[in-house]
């Protein structure tokens, strides 16, 4: 409002900064009201945080702003003028970029090609490979990563793919950048880098919309906070005025004090013994460098480390997903000789994989079919599947894990990200494992669901199961584990009991073999 006579009061100042508004948005899916009369303002040069439980409607609102979904009712205003978004291309033209919660990349293309997909740099109609590669390398350097731009995307680990997804968004010149859980597969060091970049973007006037379930992270980076619950807006505040307990209270309407509790349990005999687990890396060095450890009955063994430290490779090996690995495994004192995944499941290993989209779920199947996929043999009557028992088992898991689903026959893709994750955990539990391998089981799930998963871990430990818990969340590993092993460059670089472990010690051990400032030599030949 360029009226020189009026004194710009607080109200007007705030209005002036608002670049994008979603007004009275309602979104109805068959069977679900995902959003109900939600208004949301996005301020220029600020980090606008959106939080809420799994299924609260955050991603749906973002998809509406990105032109992927259309609202049932409501309007979108950009710079005070109403705009129509019919496709992601439209949103792009208005300068709205998005990092999706579920990664959207082509595994068969290289990193560069993914970054510039549909926005190729051309010179007289032909793709200009060299400038593209250079800019890609620049972006990756800005993110302080060492990813070869010519590598196939499918060969990267999940965390690295998330970095590529971020780079892809940064490659566009956007005014508004939506980040839907951009850090769910990143560890602390990478999150720091991302925050530095977010501050850079802020200072250039880019509006950021930021969604995450990591509450400390939100208060650290956020400016304005909006809370959704069950598709409705329940609170709005400035980040400087609030704290984590307030957030949790508003989000789940529950006392946050008893969310992370670890129960002391009695440890039994050695359940699992792993000796010299080794797997070479295709480019040289080791993915797993002679890893040996023991797991006792009733023990929760945490694995901490940076991205690519080899933790996921280790649990993959135990689950039988990496036949090229060598080493000895003993379960209850008996050597495990079977190598295929299905035989490993039968002998009691089950993996809840890190990448639920690619390895955890069959996207074309229903919630129930996904849930039962690993344990179908248990529901046979003669040669036929017993529909009734299948249904009963599914319903029980849905209840125990409080999965938000209207009907177990819904397609899995209709569930919010966090609820999909719960289905993957449920699928693992239904195989009745002896050793439960959890690879980042809390990725993308809300505090309430997290405490439910921790509760299940406690319960299984009390029943003498062994739980291996891989996580990049320092606080969770510290809170939940009886013992913590830290890995770096494929080797175990630290072991701490629950009592002696501290954040500093874990971080120090996870950096062994890395040079200062996250750089350093190419492979840990020195270890």
């Amino acid at each position: 409002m360029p009226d020189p006579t009026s004194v710009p009061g607080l109200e007007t100042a705030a209005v002036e900064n608002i670049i994008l508004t979603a007004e009275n948005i309602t979104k109805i899916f068959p069977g679900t009201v995902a959003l109900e009369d939600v208004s949301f303002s996005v301020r220029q040069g600020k980090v606008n945080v959106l939080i809420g439980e799994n299924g609260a409607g955050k991603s749906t609102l973002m998809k509406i702003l990105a032109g992927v979904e259309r609202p049932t009712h409501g309007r979108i205003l950009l710079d005070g003028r109403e705009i129509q978004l019919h496709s992601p291309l439209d949103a792009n033209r208005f300068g709205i970029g998005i990092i999706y919660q579920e990664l959207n990349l082509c595994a068969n293309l290289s990193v560069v090609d993914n970054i510039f997909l549909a926005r190729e740099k051309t010179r007289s109609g032909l793709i200009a490979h060299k400038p593209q590669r250079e800019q890609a390398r620049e972006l990756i350097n800005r993110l302080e990563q060492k990813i070869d731009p010519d590598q196939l995307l499918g060969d990267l680990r999940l965390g690295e793919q998330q970095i590529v997804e971020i780079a892809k968004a940064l490659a566009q010149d956007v005014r508004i950048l939506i980040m839907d859980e951009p850090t769910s597969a990143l560890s602390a060091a990478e999150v720091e880098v991302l925050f530095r970049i977010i501050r850079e973007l802020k200072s250039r006037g880019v509006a950021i919309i930021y969604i995450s379930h990591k509450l400390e992270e939100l208060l650290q980076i956020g400016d304005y906070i909006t809370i959704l619950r069950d598709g409705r807006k329940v609170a709005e505040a400035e980040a400087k005025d609030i704290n984590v307990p307030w957030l949790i209270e508003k989000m789940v309407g529950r006392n946050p004090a008893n969310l992370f509790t670890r129960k002391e349990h009695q440890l039994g005999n050695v359940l699992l013994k792993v000796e010299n687990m080794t797997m070479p890396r295709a480019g040289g060095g080791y993915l797993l460098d002679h890893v040996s450890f023991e797991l006792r009955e009733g023990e929760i063994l945490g694995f901490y480390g940076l991205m690519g430290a080899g933790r996921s490779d280790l649990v993959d090996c135990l689950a039988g997903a990496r036949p090229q690995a060598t080493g000895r495994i003993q379960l209850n004192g008996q050597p495990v000789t079977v190598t295929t995944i299905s035989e490993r499941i039968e002998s009691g290993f089950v993996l809840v994989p890190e990448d639920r989209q690619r390895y955890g779920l069959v996207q074309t199947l229903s919630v129930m079919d996904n849930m039962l996929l690993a344990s179908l043999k248990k529901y046979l009557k003669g040669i036929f599947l017993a529909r009734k028992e299948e249904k009963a088992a599914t319903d029980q898991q849905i209840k125990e894990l409080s999965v938000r689903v209207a009907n177990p026959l819904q397609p899995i893709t209709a569930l919010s990200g966090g609820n999909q994750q719960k289905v993957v955990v449920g699928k693992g539990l239904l195989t009745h494992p002896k050793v439960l391998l959890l690879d980042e089981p809390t990725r993308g799930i809300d505090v309430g669901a997290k405490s439910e998963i921790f509760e299940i871990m406690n319960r299984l430990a009390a029943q003498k199961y062994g739980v291996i818990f891989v996580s990049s969340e320092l606080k969770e590993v510290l809170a939940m584990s009886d013992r913590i092993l830290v890995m770096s460059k494929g080797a175990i670089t630290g072991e701490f009991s629950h009592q002696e472990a501290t954040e500093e010690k874990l971080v120090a051990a996870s950096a062994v073999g890395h040079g200062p400032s996250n750089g350093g030599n190419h492979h840990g030949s020195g270890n």
Partner: protein
Amino acid sequence: MDQETKTNPAPMKKRRNITKTDVQQFLLRGRAFIALILVFVVFTSLTPQFLTTGNIVIMSKHVAINALLAIGMTFVILTGGIDLSVGSIVGMVAMIAGGLINEGINLPQLGIIIYPHTWMIVLLSLALGTLMGAISGFVITRFNVAPFIATLGMLYVARGIAGLRNNGYTFPNLIGRPEYGNTGFEILGAGNFLGVNYSIWLMGILTLVAYIVTTRLPFGRHVYAIGGNERAAELSGVRIARSKIIVYSISGFCSALVGLIIASQLVAAHPATGESFELNAIAAVVLGGTSLAGGRGSMGGTLIGAFVIGVLGDGLVMMGVSSFWQKVIKGAVIVLAVIIDQVQARMQERIALQEQQEMK
């Protein structure tokens, strides 16, 4: 720090690469090429007249026809689709072009018959084939019909039109008449440039163009992206429907070109022209290493695949192998090639690991 990370790894890799394992890898990767050499060597030793100039010219002409179809098919398969209608479009376009030459465009209301110039006929025919492809693409994208079904439908429709055009009869003697100014159609099939048949030139030029499109144009990249992860491509802003329609149009265009070439070579149009050509085209694409699931493959591979199929077919004929055995052998070769492809992936992994053991 920056410099170190940028400059160090690259030369290291290069130096390490010149080893015997690298030779092994090359041999595995060039499997289609090796198959081609093998086929050549076997036939040359078994039939003396195999490597004569005359025979090579005939073989190349056969190969060209299959290769042109396979180029269009490669685009389609790269997006994860399939085009079963190519053979029928070949026949339909041949019949339409033949009819235009022999009967012209009859306008009974005005009482006149228009005989278009040969160039016009060629352009009209190409446009018709492209349109048929575009229709398939439109049905697939607009109504969400599986490519297999949509193009299967087109297979029947186009073949039916080919028969309807002249009640199942052939259009013979497509030489036109000087007084109508529509002569010269046979040149396309029989003409040479620098001693090489036009159809072979067309194969070379189209392969080159298709190669550039797939490797250097944004459109080509979008084709790969759609085959790899259609949803991701869409969310990135790739126009899925448009790209797919273009892809099927390209396939239709290639089919029309082949229809013209065949009609011109025979100087006649027969309604059954091109029957089951789609299978040869698909075989060439797959032999060339393109994944039927989409997203992986190359034009160079397709060209070699077309050569393997063509040379194998002609060689067996020359050796006097019965047509039944020809089919058995052809089928076995196709499946074998794909098996080798799968084994290759595993071998490469093992070679990489072996290389590392040696380094230690």
